[in-house]
C-alpha cells in the first residue's frame, strides 16, 4: 500500500503515459489501418501491392524488433533527436495498423456483394462506394475484433516502457531501483493495466450494443 501512496505522482504519470501512448497509437493505427485496407481492395495495382507488403511485413515482425529499429536506427541514421514518445507511437501504431487493416478488410468482405454492385450501378466511384456504402456497413463486423486489437495494443505499449519511454512499466523499473517491495509494485502496475484494458472492453461493448440497435 505504501508504495502506491508514497509515489502517487509517479504512478499517475506512468498511468497517464500509458493511456496517452495507447490513445495516440490507437488513432494512428485506426487511420492507417483503414487507409491500408482501402489500398488492398483499390483498383490501382501498385497500391494493392503496397498494402499487401505493408501487412505481411508488419504482421510477421516481432514488435520488439520494430522498437529496436525505431529507437536505434531511426534516431541514429535518419532523424536525429526525435523524442522517444513519437518513436514509440510510430512503432506501436504501424504494428497495430497491419492488424486493423486485416480486420477492416475481412469486415469489407462481409458486406453483401449487392451493396457494392448497387452503388456502382448508380454511378458511384470507388472512393464513394467505399466511403458511403461499404465502410459504414463494415463497421458493425469490425468492432469486436478492433476491441481485441486495441486491448493487445495497450498491453504492447509495455514494451515501450522497457525502451525508456515514461509509462507504467517504466515506473516499475524506477521503483525497483529505489528498493521498494517488488511484489507490491507489480500488483499496482497490473491493476493500472487492468483498468485500461477493461475500460476499452466496456467501451467497445457499449459501441457494439448501440450498433446492434441501429440495425
Amino acid at each position: 500500500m505504501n508504495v502506491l501512496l508514497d509515489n502517487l505522482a509517479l504512478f499517475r504519470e506512468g498511468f497517464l503515459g500509458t493511456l496517452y501512448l495507447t490513445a495516440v497509437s490507437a488513432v494512428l493505427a485506426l487511420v492507417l489501418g483503414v487507409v491500408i485496407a482501402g489500398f488492398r481492395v483499390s483498383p490501382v495495382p501498385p497500391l494493392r501491392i503496397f498494402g499487401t507488403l505493408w501487412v505481411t511485413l508488419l504482421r510477421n515482425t516481432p514488435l520488439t524488433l520494430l522498437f529496436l529499429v525505431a529507437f536505434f536506427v531511426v534516431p541514429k541514421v535518419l532523424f536525429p533527436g526525435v523524442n522517444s514518445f513519437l518513436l514509440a507511437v510510430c512503432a506501436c501504431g504501424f504494428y497495430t495498423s497491419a492488424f486493423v487493416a486485416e480486420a477492416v478488410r475481412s469486415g469489407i468482405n462481409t458486406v453483401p456483394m449487392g451493396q457494392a454492385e448497387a452503388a456502382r450501378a448508380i454511378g458511384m466511384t470507388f472512393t464513394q462506394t467505399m466511403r458511403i456504402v461499404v465502410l459504414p456497413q463494415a463497421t458493425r463486423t469490425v468492432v469486436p475484433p478492433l476491441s481485441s486489437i486495441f486491448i493487445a495494443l495497450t498491453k504492447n505499449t509495455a514494451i515501450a516502457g522497457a525502451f525508456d519511454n515514461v509509462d507504467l512499466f517504466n515506473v516499475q523499473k524506477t521503483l525497483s531501483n529505489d528498493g521498494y517491495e517488488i511484489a507490491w509494485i507489480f500488483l499496482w502496475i497490473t491493476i493500472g493495466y487492468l483498468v485500461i484494458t477493461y475500460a476499452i472492453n466496456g467501451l467497445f461493448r457499449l459501441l457494439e450494443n448501440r450498433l446492434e440497435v441501429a440495425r
Partner: protein
Amino acid sequence: MSASVLFDAPGPRARARNLILSVVGTLAFLGLFFWIGIRLNDKGQFAGELWDIFNYAGIRENILDALLSTLKVFAMAGVLSLVFAVILCVARLSDHKPIRWVATVFIDLFRSIPLLITIYALWVGIVGDFTPMWALVVGLTVYNGCVQAEVLRAGINAVPKGQAEAAYALGLRKTQVNASILFPQAVRSMLPTIISQLVVTLKDTSLGFMVLYPELLYSARLIANNTPVGGVYPIVQTVIVFGAIYIALCLALAWLANWIEQRGRKSKAGITPAAGAKELKEVAAAGTADLAAAAPAGTADIRKE
C-alpha cells in the same frame, strides 16, 4: 466480396488515370527510398565492408546459436502452452462450479496482463527463482495457454450438441466423451487458429531480449553493438538479416496454417469451423490479441444456430 466488385472494369480514361497514379506513386516511393538511401549513405551505412561481418564463422555461429535458442524456447513454450490450454479448457468447461470459476478468473486475469510484465515479474523473482529462459518459457506458457484455452473452448462449443448427446447415450463417461468425441473435433476445426496463435508465441519469444535471454534479438543487439567496422556500427545490416529470419519463420508457420485450412476445406469429413470459430480466427491472427470480446459473442452465435 471480392475486390473486383467494388469498382468497374477500368475503361480507357480510368486506365490512363491509374497509370498516372501508379507512376506518380512509384516515383514518390522511389524518392522516399532514395532519400533514406542518401541519409544512410551519409552515415556510411552502405559500405560493403559492413556486410562482411556476416562472412565470419564466429558471427554465423552466433546467429545459428541464437536461432536455436529461440526455437528451443518456442518449442517448449508451444508444447507446454498447448498442454496447459487443454487443462484450463477442461477446467473451464467443468461441471463443478468452483473449478469453473477459478479457471475463468485465471484466464481472464493472465490474458489481460501484458506478457512483458508476466515475464519480467517471473524474472525478478516474485514467485520464485527463475533463470531468464524459464521466466520466458513459463510466461509464454501461461499467457498463450490462456489464449489457446479460449480457442479450444470455442472449438468445443462449435461441435454440434448431438455429438456429445449421442456419446452419452452410448454410455461413455465424461472423460471419454471429452477425449474421444469433443476434443478431436474441436482441435481439428480450430487448427488454423491454434497455429496462428503459435505464430504469436514465436514472435513473443523476442521478449526474451528484455530479460537478457540470448535469443535472436538479443544476439542482434550484441552483434550490432560489438562489431564496428571502420567506426560504423552495422545496425541496419543486422536489422535486415534478423528481420528476414523472423519473417521467414513466421511466414513458414502461417503457410502451414493456410495449408491445413485448405486441406480441411477439401475433405468433407468432420465439422467445418462455425461462424464464431471463424471470427475467433481473425482475432487470434491479430497478434497478441485478446479473445475476451470475441469468444462470448462467437459462442452465442453458435448456440443460436
